[in-house]
């Protein structure tokens, strides 16, 4: 199946049915929650400081719920009315806006202490009409400039997204830089196909001590449950390939065991055991 952003614009793709399906899927919930926690970690807000955050593409409020739980006040924007309806049903705490982020925000300068966005900005990479304002670079530029204006100095925006190629990452980061952001891309689990996640970690200001781009998580860093499924099986397979040939299953032990079994069953003509049992014949030539 192709990626959702290639099938239809978000406000159509996430219709009533898809919005419900998405919100009730426990796997989606788990992944969204994990990414929200990670985004908050990357946001690096001073602890104990009650902040006002912007949730870009809040959808049905899966990420907003976590912001509530962590004690943040937040404002969410999304372009899909059906998703917002689900969010209303779920009674999230934040203020919701029906807004197309590619058209830019209307927030006053310096309004927010930070912004997060989970699995959203890849939707900006498709042109829906041939009008110049609907071209991806134009929409990205509008999005990043207005976002930059709406954030306080210093602050951060962490945007998780699913790029399909390196060109897309290049395009997004270059436009973000033109809009005045510092920072860059953080890749978690870069070697895993499933667990790999790309975060765009953007900084506004930062004064003399320039902010450092955080490091992505590596496979070794977290053992056990946090790893992608089937990772272990693949590793075992690899080990076997490295060590070369498999251990012979039908060795001497196996033959002795079998012969013993036949004797117990009273089978005739079971050969006697000797020092030659299970040994290979010499090559004749």
């Amino acid at each position, binding site marked *: 199946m192709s990626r959702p952003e290639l099938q239809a614009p978000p406000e159509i793709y996430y219709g009533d049915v898809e919005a419900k399906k998405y919100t009730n899927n426990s796997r989606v919930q788990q992944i969204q929650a994990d990414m929200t926690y990670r985004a908050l970690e990357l946001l690096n807000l001073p602890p104990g400081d009650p902040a006002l955050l912007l949730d870009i593409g809040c959808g049905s409020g899966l990420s907003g719920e976590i912001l509530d739980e962590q004690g943040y006040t937040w404002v969410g924007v999304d372009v899909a009315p059906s998703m917002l309806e689900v969010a*209303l049903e779920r009674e999230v705490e934040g203020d919701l806006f029906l807004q197309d982020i590619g058209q830019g925000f209307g927030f006053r300068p310096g309004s927010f202490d930070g912004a997060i966005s989970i699995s959203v900005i890849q939707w900006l990479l498709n042109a829906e*009409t041939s009008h110049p304002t609907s071209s991806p670079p134009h929409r990205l530029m509008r999005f990043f400039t207005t976002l930059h204006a709406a954030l306080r100095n210093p602050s951060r925006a962490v945007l998780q997204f699913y790029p399909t190629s390196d060109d897309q990452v290049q395009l997004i980061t270059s436009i973000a830089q033109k809009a005045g952001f510092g920072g860059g891309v953080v890749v978690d689990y870069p070697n895993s196909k499933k667990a790999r996640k790309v975060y765009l970690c953007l900084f506004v200001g930062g004064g003399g001590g320039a902010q450092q781009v955080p490091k992505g998580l590596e496979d070794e860093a977290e053992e056990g449950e946090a790893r992608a499924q089937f990772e272990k099986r693949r590793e075992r397979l690899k080990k076997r390939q490295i060590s070369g040939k498999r251990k012979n299953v039908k060795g001497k032990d196996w033959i002795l065991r079998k012969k013993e079994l036949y004797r117990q069953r009273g089978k005739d003509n079971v050969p006697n055991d000797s020092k030659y049992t299970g040994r290979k014949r010499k090559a004749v030539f």
Partner: protein
Amino acid sequence: MVRLITHNLLACHVKGCTSNNFPLQFKDVQIELREAEFNPDFLRNFMPRIEWKALVDAARQLGDTSLPEEQPEMVDDEFLQKLHHVLLEVHVEEGAMVCPNCNHSYPISNGIPNMLLAEHEIG
């Protein structure tokens, strides 16, 4: 769920509408009061970012006159309670917000304002 805290941050973002585009004026509104958790630290933190006049005007328009005309220097608990009520507990459910400059109307339905623009309005 337009609360006055977000209304106070919101300006018109129509193409070319860059001056006198704040604050948006409420029109035909229905409000609902819903209790929220009182968090004095958050309010103290947020105070410097408030456009005081816009907030007081908006509150008066919605029929709440508890806030003083001028932002007080001294911040006591009683004042924070009032501010908390105005900022976080008054929800605008239905109606519209109109830009004082370009007259663009952002309709609010079910508590969600529709901020979408037409193609010719995109900056």
